[in-house]
């Protein structure tokens, strides 16, 4: 974690400031409203020591990975099609941006009605959140690719597949990675919201029952776990991005 995220001393300082703020707030509002950093880490450690908790994690991860894989594959494929077919892209883009800004949670009943109360509903809900940003970013990646790259590959008389894999893919990669990063966060959010509203397993479910039982330390511990996970993955993706693109 430390080797991944805070590359500068400044970021470490900011993290420290957040910790101090957290502790201060804890002292201000009391332990029953906000667990302290130490309590939270302790709670997380004890949760992680139980097999039960890992079952919930794996439940969430299963739904999340499936949703993320679907969002990725669907989003990139759809984005490329819409990027290449200009008219289709122009027609679809405003529709997609509007769908993107809909609070998708209102559609959750519909998802439950269609998919039932299992993992498939969670996956569907995750995909609903993650698919559109990935699609939009991929579409724009194709559209904004400098035309001169395609012309260069023509002049070098590359075959279509050579051109796709050695020129077009690397050229649009950075944009796609940005979309994937946003899609990652939103897919996770979608799966969690899905688990919070109607589910029997998973971290989102644990969160709701902790909220219902007022177990603030459990809430904070799960939030911390999710934050660390998401921030770490995000930092990893940024790193991969930098390594791949050199821009």
């Amino acid at each position, binding site marked *: 974690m430390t080797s991944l995220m805070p590359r500068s001393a400044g970021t470490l300082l900011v993290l420290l400031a957040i910790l101090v703020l957290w502790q201060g707030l804890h002292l201000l509002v009391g332990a029953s409203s906000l667990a302290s950093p130490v309590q939270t880490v302790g709670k997380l450690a004890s949760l992680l020591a139980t097999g039960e908790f890992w079952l919930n994690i794996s439940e969430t991860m299963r739904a999340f990975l499936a949703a993320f894989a679907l969002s990725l594959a669907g989003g990139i494929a759809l984005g490329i099609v819409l990027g290449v077919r200009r008219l289709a892209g122009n027609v679809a883009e405003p529709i997609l941006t509007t769908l993107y800004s809909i609070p998708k949670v209102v559609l959750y009943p519909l998802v439950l009605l269609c998919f039932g109360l299992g993992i498939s509903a969670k996956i569907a809900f995750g995909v609903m959140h993650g698919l559109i940003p990935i699609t939009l970013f991929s579409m724009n990646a194709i559209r904004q690719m400098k035309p001169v790259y395609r012309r260069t590959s023509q002049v070098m008389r590359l075959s279509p597949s050579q051109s796709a894999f050695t020129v077009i893919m690397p050229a649009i990669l950075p944009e796609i990675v940005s979309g994937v990063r946003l899609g990652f966060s939103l897919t996770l959010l979608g799966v969690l919201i899905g688990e919070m509203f109607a589910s029997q397993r998973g971290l989102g479910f644990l969160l709701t029952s902790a*909220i*219902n039982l007022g177990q603030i330390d459990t809430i904070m511990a799960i939030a911390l776990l999710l934050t660390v996970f998401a921030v770490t993955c995000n930092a990893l993706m940024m790193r991969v991005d930098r390594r791949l693109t050199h821009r």
Partner: protein
Amino acid sequence: QAPVRSEEISVTQWGASMYGAPYAVAMEKGLFKQAGIDITGIIGSGGGGTTVRNILASATPYGEVAVSAALAAKAQGLDLIIVNTGTRSVAEASMVVMPGSELKGVEDLAGKKVAITSPKSVSEMLLLMVLREKGVDQGKVQRVAAGGYVPALTMLEQNAVVGSVLIEPLSIIRKDKYRTLYRAGDVLKPMTTSVGITTRKFAQENPAKLKAIIAGRRAGVQAIYKDPAETARIIEKLYKLEPAIAKEAVDNMIPPKMWSEGEFNLEELNRMVDGLKLIGEIKADVDWSAVLDKSYLPADLQAKQ
């Protein structure tokens, strides 16, 4: 078809309230298997509607849900029947005030603000029934929806309200912090709070399975009353509660006989209907004959009224 196939059924508030205790005990002690069915897992869920829909969609469409959810689903034309009753008490519900509060009884609530979870919820219904029982004009008690029990307690602590509805096991976990104004179970007579439902189709095609589930659950209920201490241990493990709290939670429910063995008691059912009318969730009396089907109950319970 294998003789004993593993099945999953649904129970509302599984893992959060005591509704599911008979299933937990029956599974743990192999009572379902003895009854001829292998129940391996319980699907829980928050909302009643979600549970009903989920039951309808699952392979073994049986589950225990709130009466209101069953009636609402029925009213919207879903093809389901009620085949047994589940819980029959309101003993787990209460209202708390801050320890230093001047309020002495229900009567003192007139002209005050209290927190409920959400409009038309069970918490509101019970409050209104208590007020009516004690002859307090419900219009004089301002009800604030907090969104849940914990937020309701927060409002109480912040003096935004003078009292807050509460439910077990949360009330046991936090019992040192508040003073109980009333227990719903002390004021109100028992009423049916949850029922077992299934689809008509499943009942007709798999009467044996259905009977086995109901019988298994009944055995679970009997085991609870026979050995509360063991029940507490099972609950403790399943719900991840502290031993003392689990014990108190179970013990509290033994005297009011929270869990019914499954038989239908029209008086208790109608008491619930009465409450639902009070919050406006249903408008007219319920024709139970169209909803109930007692033919899957054990023979001795079918006879009970």
